[in-house]
């Protein structure tokens, strides 16, 4: 569904943000794109939708080159940026003007999403709070039923109940023909939602694996003392003990902690590559 081959991109040609990035993303999964601030998460999404053009390499999304921005491509993909734009229109007017561009748009779904996200207003959208505006755009983006949905920091600006509703809605709207790609640095918001993890740092792809594979290859435990012998990929002291991430040599079962995984991967990129390759 998304093929990235040897992508290089930089806002400045001398200083590339991505160098020869190769990545393949398939339908039927919710991908979590994790990275530090300034790692290029939004930039990657903008390359996928065609807002930015690769310096080198190719990107194919749904069989199209995004940089051509063909209408037949744009109606198969929806991008929700971190800061959303809503014009001075009512909900009905917005749907009336924008929905016809998306052939699979479902008004019934839209109404349902708005109810689930608790967005109700007869007023113009630009009078809503930022969080409400964002929820409206999320509801609209989902109702467009595009094959690919890109979300950049979708939980920024959402309150705690809304984050929960957002996760529930995304999980409910997922199907085998669809791919949802969520970029965030608020890793905890994606817990129990994503089924594949992509981690980028300093322009390099450090990890692209399913949560199941991660659980198979890494062990996330809490111990009283640091285990001897095992290579510690990440350790963090807490009141409950020491959170430890190690290689899962004995195929023990543990629940993937995305925050600890992210730290383990960014602190030990080479070891992680060896483990996963």
């Amino acid at each position, binding site marked *: 569904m998304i093929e990235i081959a040897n992508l290089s991109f930089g806002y400045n040609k001398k200083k590339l943000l991505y160098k020869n990035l190769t990545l393949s993303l398939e339908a039927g999964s919710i991908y979590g794109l994790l990275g530090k601030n300034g790692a290029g998460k939004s930039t990657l999404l903008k390359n996928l*939708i065609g807002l930015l053009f690769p310096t080198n390499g190719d990107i194919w999304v749904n069989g199209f080159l995004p940089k051509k921005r*063909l209408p037949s491509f744009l109606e198969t993909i929806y991008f929700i940026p971190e*800061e959303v734009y809503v014009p001075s229109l009512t909900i009905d007017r917005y749907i009336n003007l924008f929905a016809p561009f998306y052939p699979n748009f479902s008004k019934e779904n839209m109404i349902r999403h708005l109810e689930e996200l608790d967005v109700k207003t007869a007023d113009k959208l630009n009078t809503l709070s930022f969080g409400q505006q964002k929820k409206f755009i999320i509801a609209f983006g989902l109702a467009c039923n595009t094959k690919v949905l890109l979300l950049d920091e979708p939980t920024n600006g959402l309150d705690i109940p809304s984050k929960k509703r957002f996760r529930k809605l995304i999980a409910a709207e997922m199907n085998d023909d669809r791919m949802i790609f969520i970029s965030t640095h608020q890793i905890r918001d994606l817990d129990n939602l994503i089924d594949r993890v992509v981690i980028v740092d300093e322009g390099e792809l450090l990890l692209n694996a399913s949560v199941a594979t991660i659980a198979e290859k890494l062990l996330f435990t809490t111990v009283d003392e640091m285990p001897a012998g095992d290579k510690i990929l990440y350790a963090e002291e807490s009141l409950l003990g020491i959170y430890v991430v190690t290689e899962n040599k004995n195929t023990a079962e543990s629940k993937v902690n995305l925050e600890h995984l992210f730290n383990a991967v960014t602190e030990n990129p080479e070891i992680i590559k060896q483990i996963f390759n």
Partner: protein
Amino acid sequence: MNNTFNIHRFGLLFKKTLLERPMQLFGLTALSLSIVFIMYVLGKMLAGFEDGQNISFMLGLVGGGCFLASFVFSYFTSNAMGSNYITLPASAFEKWLCGVLITGVFYLLLFLLFYRFIDTLFVGIYHRNLDANGPFYRQLYDQVQIFPYDGFIANKAILLFVNFSGAMLVGSLYFNKVNFIKVALLICGFWLGSWVLNLLIAQAMIQHVNNAMPYWLVWIDVNKDEGRIELPENIMRVVSIFIQFIIPATLWMLAWLRLKEKEF
């Protein structure tokens, strides 16, 4: 699916463009026409009918057209708005055509109709208020006529309109913020540069140069009188074609190319 132009999709886009920001779009048009009306009345009162007509026509067409041209692609003042505009499933050609139709066709037609309406109204009032038995009736009647759309001023105004609004369209796709002021400054800078260059070239080639207009005219002092040197007719024709057609067409087409290639 036709990825360049589809009449249904274009219809949707045009409707969306008009209704998405109606207050700004129609408000700006209404403001421009109101200023034309005020300038017509003020100019007529302070400088006479002919000057009032000339000033208001020039200002309405060139100023109003430029204002609108700087607005139609002004989606790039924020990341969210720009992303929304670029990722909307319509082709760059359709998006460009919307801007061109609004600025180059609808505003132009609306302005010409509005101007002819107020001009006919005021000229009619003037004619009706003249004393038909007065000694200078015919002279006074003939002094004030409806502004000719094929006259010198109208031609120059249309020339400036197509060039400046083309520059505004392109400029609004290069400058994301305060594009009107930035492009206006560029145009002023270009005009000033052309004038200085023309003057320097004229001074280098001709003695006693008094002044020079960009590209076509040089005034020289001849004893106590003043003389004009103009471009030869055949060269003037070539230059005119360039200014009337080639530069505006290039600018308006450049806006389409820029829209296609714009990264945001």
